[in-house]
C-alpha cells in the first residue's frame, strides 16, 4: 500500500476538533476532574463534592450540578447510564451509591465493600443501568443494584489476579490484565445481564524484563469495535536499545499496533499489524471504523483502515498508514470578552494542539485538563478529493466511511474531468465503477432480503461481512444526474470528448452487468446519443447485436427515431420489440405504418388473440395501400374470422367497418367474389 501524504494547506485538514467544546473547571488543588467513558461525562468535583459536583458531557443537553457530603478525597465517580444512580469511590475497599431523581441526589448513601480483607479495588464500571462491575486485584465482582432497597445483590464472582482493566461500552467487552508482566489479557463479555468469560490471550513481549515487572499498561490497550468486529488494539513500543539481549530488536525501532480480533467461537487472533513509522508518546482514537494514531512529538496523526489491503503473510496483515502526517485543524478558543478587553488582545486564542496536557479517551474524545476543554475528534473527507493519484484505493477508503457520499460523487466527477490531463484511464475507471457497484449490489441484496421479510435470525446469518449494509450507495440515477448528464452538457462537443463518454458509459455498463444489476434505459441513452453524435452507427449496431443493451420500449422508440439517419435501426427496433413480450401491438403498428399490411396481419394472427385484432385498423391500412388484392385478402380474412368467432361473415356494428364494406362492394361487387377479383386485378 502506498503511503499518501497531504500537504498542510488551509483547506487540507482531515481532522478537526468539534466546534463546540465542552468547558469545565480546570484541575486545581481543590478541584478534581473525572471522565467516564461509558456515559462520556466529565465530573468536576470541588472539595470532595462538598462545594459542588458539576457533570457535563457531549451527550447531555444541560449540565448536572449537585453536592455530596465530603467524606474524603474522591478516587472515582460515575453515573449509571440512565443517571439514576451515582457511584463514588473514596477508599480502596468500598464504593458508595446514591439514588438520584430529577438530577437531584436523595442524600442517602449506601455502600458496597469488596470481598475479602486483603482485596483492593482497582476500579468499577457501570455496564447497564443496574449492572455494576467491581474490579479488584482478586477478581471481578458482578452486582445488581437494587435502588429501591438501597442495596446490591451479588450476581457472580470471577476470580482473577488483575493489574488493571479496560472496558469498551460499544461492545460490552471488559479486558482484564493479569500476570506479573500484565501481558495476559482476560476478556469478559457483558451480554443480557451476564458477564461471560471468553478465551484468554497473551500479548507477546519479545524481551520480558528480568525480574518480571508490569510491562503492558492500560493506556496501550484499546478494546473497540471496527466494522462490527470486536477488536483489541495493543500498542507496542520498540524495545529500548539498552536492553541487554536485544536480539529481537526491530530494526526500525518504530512502534506498532497489533490488532487482535475476537471471534465468537474461537480464541482472539492476531490479525493485523499497523506499522506506525514513528515512536514516542502515542495515543489512539477510533473514528468511523478508522484507527487514528496521534504522535505527540511530531504533532501529527496517522490514519489506518484495517479493511484496506496490506501485505499479508496468510495469517497477519501488515498495514502502513493510509494517510500519514495528518494534522488537526488549528483550533481557536473564544476568550471571555472582559479578559480580551483588558489585554487588548484578539478575542480568540489559538489552542495548542497535541498538547502534553491532552488526554485521549475512547473512542474519539480529547480532553485538555489544564484548559478545561473536552472535544470530540471529527473526520473531514473533502480534502481527499485532491488525492487523485490512486483513485481506487481512495474509493475503497471512502466507501467505508459514513457520510462520504458527497465526497465520493465529487471525486468521481473530478476523475471524469481529469481524464484529459491527469489521465484517469479506462481500466482505473472500470475498477472504480466496480467498487461503487459492489456496494450498490449489496444494497440491492439487502433491499430484496428485507422485502422478502425473512425471520430476523436468518437475516443476521446471511449478512456476513461481505454483504454488510454499505455506507455509500451510488445508484444509476446518481451517476446519470451528477456525472453523465453534466458530461454531455458542459463541454463543447468534440470527437475526443464523445469517444471518452462512450468509453466511460461502456465501462459503467460493463461493471453493472458484471454485478448483475439491471441497467436502466437512461444510461443506455447517453451511450446511444454519443455514438449517434460520432456517426458510429455500425458500432451502435454491434452493441445491440450482442444484446449489450437491455431491451425496453423506450429504447426501441429511440431506435425508431434513428431510422432516418441509420435505416438499419428499424430492424433493431422491431427485433427488440419482438423480444419484449407485450409489444406485439407496437410491431403491428410499425408494420402497418410501413405499408406491410399482409405481413402485419400474419404477424397479428400468430401473436394476438384473434378476436381482439382490430379489423378496422387493417382494412384502413389495406385501403390506403391502393392495392385491391391486398384489400381483398384482408377483407376475406376478417370475414372468415367473423364466421369462426361469431358464426357469421358480418362485421359487428361496434367495429365501424361500414366504410370498408362499401369499399369492398365498390371494388368487387356483391356477388361472386373471385370473378370480381380477377376483374379488378386486371384493371389495377
Amino acid at each position, binding site marked *: 500500500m502506498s503511503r499518501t501524504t497531504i500537504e498542510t494547506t488551509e483547506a487540507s485538514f482531515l481532522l478537526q476538533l468539534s466546534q463546540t467544546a465542552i468547558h469545565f473547571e480546570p484541575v486545581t488543588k481543590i478541584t478534581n476532574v473525572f471522565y467516564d467513558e461509558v456515559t462520556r461525562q466529565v465530573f468536576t468535583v470541588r472539595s470532595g463534592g462538598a462545594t459542588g459536583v458539576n457533570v457535563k458531557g457531549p451527550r447531555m443537553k444541560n449540565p448536572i450540578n449537585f453536592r455530596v457530603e465530603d467524606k474524603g478525597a474522591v478516587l472515582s465517580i460515575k453515573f449509571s447510564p440512565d443517571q439514576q444512580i451515582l457511584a463514588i469511590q473514596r477508599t480502596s475497599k468500598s464504593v458508595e451509591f446514591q439514588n438520584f431523581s430529577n438530577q437531584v441526589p436523595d442524600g442517602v448513601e449506601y455502600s458496597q465493600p469488596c470481598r475479602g480483607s486483603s482485596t483492593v479495588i482497582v476500579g468499577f464500571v457501570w455496564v447497564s443501568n443496574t449492572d455494576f462491575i467491581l474490579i479488584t486485584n482478586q477478581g471481578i465482582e458482578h452486582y445488581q443494584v437494587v435502588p429501591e432497597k438501597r442495596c446490591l445483590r451479588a450476581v457472580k464472582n470471577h476470580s482473577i489476579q488483575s493489574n488493571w482493566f479496560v472496558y469498551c461500552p460499544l461492545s460490552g467487552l471488559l479486558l482484564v490484565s493479569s500476570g506479573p508482566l500484565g501481558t495476559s489479557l482476560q476478556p469478559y463479555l457483558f451480554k443480557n445481564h451476564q458477564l461471560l468469560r471468553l478465551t484468554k490471550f497473551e500479548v507477546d513481549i519479545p524481551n520480558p524484563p528480568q525480574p518480571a515487572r508490569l510491562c503492558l499498561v492500560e493506556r496501550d490497550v484499546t478494546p473497540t469495535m471496527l466494522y462490527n468486529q470486536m477488536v483489541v488494539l495493543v500498542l507496542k513500543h520498540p524495545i529500548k536499545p539498552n536492553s541487554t539481549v536485544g536480539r529481537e530488536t526491530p530494526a526500525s525501532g518504530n512502534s506498532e499496533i497489533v490488532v487482535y480480533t475476537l471471534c465468537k467461537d474461537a480464541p482472539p487472533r492476531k490479525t493485523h499489524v499497523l506499522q506506525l513509522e514513528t515512536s514516542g508518546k502515542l495515543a489512539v482514537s477510533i473514528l468511523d471504523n478508522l484507527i487514528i494514531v496521534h504522535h505527540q512529538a511530531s504533532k501529527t496523526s496517522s490514519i489506518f483502515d484495517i479493511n484496506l489491503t496490506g501485505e499479508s503473510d496468510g495469517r497477519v496483515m501488515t498495514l502502513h498508514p493510509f494517510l500519514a502526517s495528518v494534522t488537526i485543524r488549528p483550533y481557536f478558543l473564544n476568550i471571555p470578552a472582559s479578559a480580551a478587553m483588558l489585554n487588548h488582545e484578539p478575542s480568540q486564542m489559538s489552542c495548542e494542539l497535541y498538547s502534553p496536557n491532552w488526554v485521549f479517551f475512547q473512542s474519539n474524545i480529547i480532553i485538555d485538563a489544564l484548559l478545561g476543554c473536552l472535544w470530540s475528534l471529527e473526520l473531514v473527507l473533502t480534502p481527499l478529493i485532491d488525492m487523485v493519484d490512486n483513485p481506487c484505493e481512495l474509493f475503497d477508503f471512502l466507501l467505508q466511511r459514513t457520510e462520504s457520499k458527497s465526497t465520493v460523487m465529487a471525486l468521481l466527477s473530478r476523475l471524469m474531468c481529469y481524464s484529459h490531463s491527469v489521465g484517469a*484511464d*479506462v*481500466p482505473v475507471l*472500470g475498477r472504480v465503477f466496480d467498487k461503487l457497484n459492489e456496494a450498490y449490489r449489496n444494497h440491492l441484496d439487502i433491499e430484496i432480503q428485507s422485502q422478502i421479510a425473512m425471520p430476523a435470525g436468518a437475516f443476521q446469518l446471511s449478512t456476513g461481512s461481505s454483504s454488510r449494509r454499505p455506507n455509500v450507495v451510488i445508484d444509476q440515477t446518481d451517476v446519470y444526474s451528477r456525472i453523465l448528464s453534466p458530461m454531455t452538457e458542459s463541454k463543447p462537443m468534440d470527437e*475526443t470528448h464523445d*469517444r*471518452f463518454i*462512450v*468509453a466511460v458509459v*461502456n*465501462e459503467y*455498463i*460493463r461493471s453493472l*452487468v*458484471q454485478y448483475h444489476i439491471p441497467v436502466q434505459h437512461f444510461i443506455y441513452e447517453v451511450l446511444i446519443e454519443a455514438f449517434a453524435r460520432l456517426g*458510429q452507427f*455500425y*458500432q451502435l*449496431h*454491434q*452493441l445491440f*447485436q*450482442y*444484446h*449489450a443493451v437491455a431491451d425496453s420500449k423506450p429504447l426501441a422508440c429511440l431506435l425508431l427515431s434513428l431510422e432516418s439517419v441509420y*435505416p*438499419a435501426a*428499424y*430492424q433493431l427496433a*422491431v*427485433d427488440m*420489440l*419482438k*423480444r419484449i413480450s407485450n409489444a406485439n401491438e407496437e*410491431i403491428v403498428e410499425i*408494420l402497418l405504418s410501413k405499408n*406491410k399490411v399482409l*405481413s402485419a396481419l*400474419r*404477424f397479428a394472427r*400468430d401473436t394476438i388473440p384473434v378476436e381482439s385484432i382490430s379489423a378496422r385498423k387493417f382494412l384502413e391500412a389495406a385501403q390506403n395501400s391502393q392495392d385491391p388484392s391486398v384489400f381483398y385478402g384482408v377483407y376475406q380474412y376478417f370475414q372468415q374470422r367473423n364466421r369462426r368467432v361469431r358464426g357469421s361473415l358480418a362485421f359487428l356494428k361496434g367495429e365501424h367497418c361500414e366504410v370498408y364494406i362499401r369499399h369492398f362492394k365498390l371494388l368487387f361487387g356483391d356477388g361472386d367474389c373471385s370473378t370480381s377479383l380477377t376483374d379488378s386485378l386486371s384493371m389495377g
Partner: protein
Amino acid sequence: MTNSEDEKSYSLVNFFVFDTSRNFPEDEEYKSIVYYYPKDTSKDSQMKEIGRTAAILKFSQTFGTSGSCHSLHTRKTRQYFNEPEPGFCMAMVINLNKIKKIKSNKVTLYQTVKLPTVPIDNDIETHDKVFNSLLVHSYHMFRLFMGTMTSALKVSDQPEEELEQLKLRAAYFYSKHLQMMPLEDADLADAFLGIQFLPMDKLSFLKVRSLVSHVEQTFPCITSTTVLYQDQIVWTGLCQDDVQLIYNYLTTKLFPASITLNTETRFLTGPADVHGLSSEMRIPHVFLNQSQTVPDECQLIVYRVAGVTMCLFISASIELDHEFFVSLDLTLGPRIVALSADVAEQALVRKTASSLNTGTDSIRFLYFNQWNMAFKSTLHQSIPGHRRVLQCQPSANNDVIKTCADLCEDFSSFGDGEIVVKTKSDAWVLGKLSNKRHLYVVVTRKNAELVDICDEVRRLRNILFKDILLLE
C-alpha cells in the same frame, strides 16, 4: 473439397482494366490498357477484346434503363463488366467447361408462393450475381490497398504518363489477386461477402469494448480498432464497407498466410520480431472511408495473441517507431491473454450449444443480414486459416447452393417473401427474405412432405432466430 479436377467448371479467360476517357491516337490505343491478363496476350488480341467490350457497353447504353450492361452470356463464355470509376472500365471473361458434367445438376422447381418462373438458363447455371460480385470485389480490394484509380493518376500533358503509375499499381495488385480469386468454387457466400460475428455473452463483449477503449485511450494515434477471435469478428470500429473488405482480407489472405508463422509472432503485420531491435517492418497501408472525398490512408497493424486478433488502424502520416510496438505489446499482451480465456470459453460453450440445436446433417442453413453484414452458414464448414468449404452430401453440393443463389436472385427482383423448392437431388430448399435478412434452409430428408419441411424450418427458427423478427 468436392471440386475434383474433372468437375472444374469455370476458368478465367481474361481479365482487364482500361481507360475510357483519354483519347489516344488510333495506332496507340493499346496505351489505354491499364491491366491485362493473361500477360502474354498479343497487343492485337488485347485491343480486340477491349474494343469489343467498349462496343458492348456503348451498345447496351442505348437501351439503358438503369446504368450499363453487367454481363453477357454466350454459349461458351460469360462476360462481366464493371465501371468502377468514371473513365475506367474493367471486365472478365469466364469459360464454361465440362458442360455435360454439369448438365446432370439441373434443378426442378417447386413453388409455393406466387412467383415468376425462375429462368432455367440453358444448360448451366452460372450466377451473374456471384461472378459480378467477384469482379466488383476485385476492384474494392484494389481500392482498399492502392487507393482509387483516379488517385493514382499523374498530372501530365501526355495521357500515357498520366496512366503510368496506375498501370504499375494495377499490375502489382492484380497479378496476385487473380491467383487467389475463388473462381471454381465461388458461391452465394462470395456474393454476400458477409462477416461472421463471434457469438458471445454481453459481459464478455463489454469487456472487449473496455479493452478497446483502453487501447485507444492509451495510444490516441489509433483511429479505429477491430477485434477478432480466430476467424470471427467480435468488435469493429470501422464502417460497414471497410470491415467487409478488411474481414475478407484477413480471413482469406493474411490469416492463411500466417499459419506457417512461429506461434511466438504476435505482430502479423508490423515488426517481425518485437524484441529484436533491427527487425524489419511490414505494415500494409489501407484506404478507408471511401465515401469521403479524401479517403483516410491508414497503416494496418495486426496483433495476435492466444487466438485473439486486434487490428489497429493508424493514420499513415504517423511514423511508428520500434518503441511504439514494444509498448503496444506490453499494454495489449497481458490484457488480451486475460480476456482470451473468457472468450475461448464462450466460443466453446456456444459451439456445443449450437451443434445441439441444429443437430443433424439433415437440416442446414445459410443466413445473411444485409443491414449488418452478419453471415452464418452451416452449409459451409469454416476452418480457421482456410477458405470455407461446402459441407453437404457431395452430390447435393452444387445443386443446393446454386438453388440458394437462384432464390436470392428471385428475391432481388420481387422483394420480401418466402419460396420453397425441391431440388433434383431430393433436397428441399426454403428461401426467405425479410427486411434485408436472407435465410436459406436446406432439408435433406427422404420422402419429406412440404408440411414436414415447413415444420422443420419453423422449429429451426424458433431455436436459432427466436430473438429476431422474421416475418411470415
